[in-house]
């Protein structure tokens, strides 16, 4: 069995006296997709940002592949993680290709290696080659998200951290991207940690689901475990808080 990707022990965080995350332990296994779910303010984004060191914990330790994240090593460790956020967080003054290759060219990769990696990523994410020279303001929401994913994958990271990557997309684009993301995750076989508030998306993409509420982990496990043996009434409520058009159709008088 391989070492876990992340081990968090006793990690907590407050912002100006408001508790965002109570002392929490969590182990993220390598090679599969873990989904952090919960409502707004549940602490799921804070948890993700602690893993990549954008937020320093008030207490506890964050271990990435067995190494504790410190001020000194956080820059180099981040280069082994890919990070994407809602809307993409693209740099507006750089083209799609420049956004993707920024870090590689900063690290002095030879041009041939950059090009090879870029065309592989374009193929993987099914991004139109012609869009590479466009600026972020010229891209659709779905395209921007694909560019963001390519940027996260450029250096060949061991783990991918995604914070609501599909928020703010229209349902059709979202549906297509969910399909494509799952394909990408399966092809790469990498560790993925994904934050979402959509239980359907979580169930579709993730093997391990972690439900948070009020800065605490309520339960973690597979979807089946969450449904069969919920640790808290809220878990059941959250899992069931879904509407499907099919339900409406069934309820409608024929």
């Amino acid at each position, binding site marked *: 069995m391989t070492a876990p990707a992340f081990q968090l022990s006793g990690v907590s965080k407050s912002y100006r006296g408001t508790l965002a995350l109570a002392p929490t332990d969590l182990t993220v296994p390598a090679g599969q997709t873990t989904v952090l779910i919960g409502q707004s303010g549940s602490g799921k984004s804070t948890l993700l940002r602690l893993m*990549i060191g*954008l937020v320093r914990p008030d207490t506890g330790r964050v271990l990435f592949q067995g190494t504790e994240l410190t001020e000194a090593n956080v*820059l*180099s*460790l*981040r*280069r082994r*993680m890919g*990070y994407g*956020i*809602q*809307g993409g*967080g*693209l*740099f*507006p*003054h*750089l*083209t799609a290709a420049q956004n993707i290759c*920024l*870090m590689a060219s*900063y690290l002095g990769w030879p041009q041939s290696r950059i090009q090879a990696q870029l065309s592989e990523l374009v193929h993987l994410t099914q991004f139109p080659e012609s869009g590479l020279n466009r*600026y*972020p*303001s*010229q*891209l*659709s929401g779905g395209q921007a998200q694909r560019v963001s994913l390519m*940027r996260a994958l450029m250096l060949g990271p061991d783990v991918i951290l995604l914070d609501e990557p599909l928020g703010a997309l229209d349902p059709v684009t979202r549906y297509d991207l969910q399909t494509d993301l799952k394909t990408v995750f399966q092809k790469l076989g990498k560790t993925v940690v994904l934050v979402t508030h959509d239980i359907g998306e979580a169930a579709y993409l993730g093997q391990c689901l972690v439900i948070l509420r009020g800065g605490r982990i309520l339960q973690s496990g597979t979807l089946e475990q969450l449904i069969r043996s919920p640790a808290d009434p809220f878990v059941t409520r959250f899992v069931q808080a879904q509407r499907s058009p099919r339900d409406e159709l069934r309820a409608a008088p024929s």
Partner: protein
Amino acid sequence: MNWVCLLSLLAGSTLARAEEKRAVVHVGSKSFTESVILGELVTQLVSSAGVRAVHRQQLGGTKILWAALLSGEIDVYPEYTGTIAQEMFAGAGLRGEEAIRKALADRGIAMTGSLGFNNTYAIGMREERAERLGIKKISDLAQHPELKLGFSNEFIDRTDGWPLLRDRYGLPQREVRGIDHDLAYRALESEAIDATDLYSTDADILYYHLRALDDDRRAFPEYNAVLLYRAGLATKAPEAISSFSRLVGRIDAKDMIAMNARAKLDRAPETRVAADFLSQKLGIATAVREPSAVDRLLLHLREHLFLVSLSLLAAIAVALPLGILCARWPRAGQVILGVVGIIQTIPSLALLVFMIPLLGIGAKPSIVALFLYSLLPIVRNTASGLQGISIDVRESAEALGLPDGARLRRIELPMASPSILAGIQTSAVINVGTATLGALIGAGGFGQPILTGIRLNDVGLILQGAVPAALLALLVQGLFEILARVLVPRGLRLPSA
């Protein structure tokens, strides 16, 4: 044809180099016509004695000239005994020439004998109005409290000016306004004011049909024209002292009024007025070179661009890091913005005067003053440009593992560039306008013709400075718009999809 030009240029430059090795005498003058003419007389006399002399014209008021003389920025300038006793040594109670000489000698300054005229203060009214009210003497003013008085700022402030006059005569007028001496005549003409302070050798007394009121209680001290010079000049260039000392006792009040009238009313250049006087009265022929209008324009342009570009470059070099500091540490930023904001509120003339003891006169203090004024827009726009970058973008750069410096160079500064450039543009345009004030302390530029124009009441001359300065400001504005197209990354100029 061309090689002749080239040869003469070469000859000229070698000549200039040879001259530099010898002592240079810097002559100063205040910013009114009589002082400029006297300064010109001294300059031409010193030159005719074979000593290189440079005239730093119309440097401003007494404080500036006195400070420049003490610091050695100038070697000699025309002054009046009354000003020395009442203003430069105020409170010392100097009486008589010997006391003045001694006080000056303690500061390393020497004084010539009187040049031959007493240019004291006088109070002037329009002849016709004074006649109607029956005012002949200053004491008559006490009967007319309704009169509006407009005095030069220097006259209002100095202890031997308005305060002395008011106390001596018990004048009741409440409405006393500060007004530029040269604008005062126009104000008299348009009846915006009823009386103003004059110099008794003013050409305008005749031109504007003014009545100089009799100083019946002898409020004003004697203002004999003299030359003040650094005692060190006796070793540096003794022939200079003997040359300008030839003026002593040679200029009477009538001569001075005539010269003032020629310069002010006939618009003859001061160099020409001085040269004519020297050849007629002293029999000295001096070579007068009057540059063409184009030469003058180019000279002023060069001086102006020098002031603006140097101060702006320095401001960018300092303000950009300060702006970054403000964005990174908002606490420190408040202090920085507060300080550069306070600098902005210092009146430019005051700032220039503060600079003189530290940096002397000329381009140096002007550049420092312009530099200080240029800081605020650049600091503020840099800070706000950086702070305006969304947290998403900033964190994305951080999450990539890009170090601090690289984030700043590759992401944050390019993204803030439109705002930063706009700040620099604002500074540059304001700078072009403010640089005209540099002429007050001898930095030249387009302020020079403006200053001379105001002094001579010559609108044409004012426009010769004001129009090019305005055009230059527009040009700078346009230049920065082009620059923005080149420097601002294309992705930031696109309309969003």
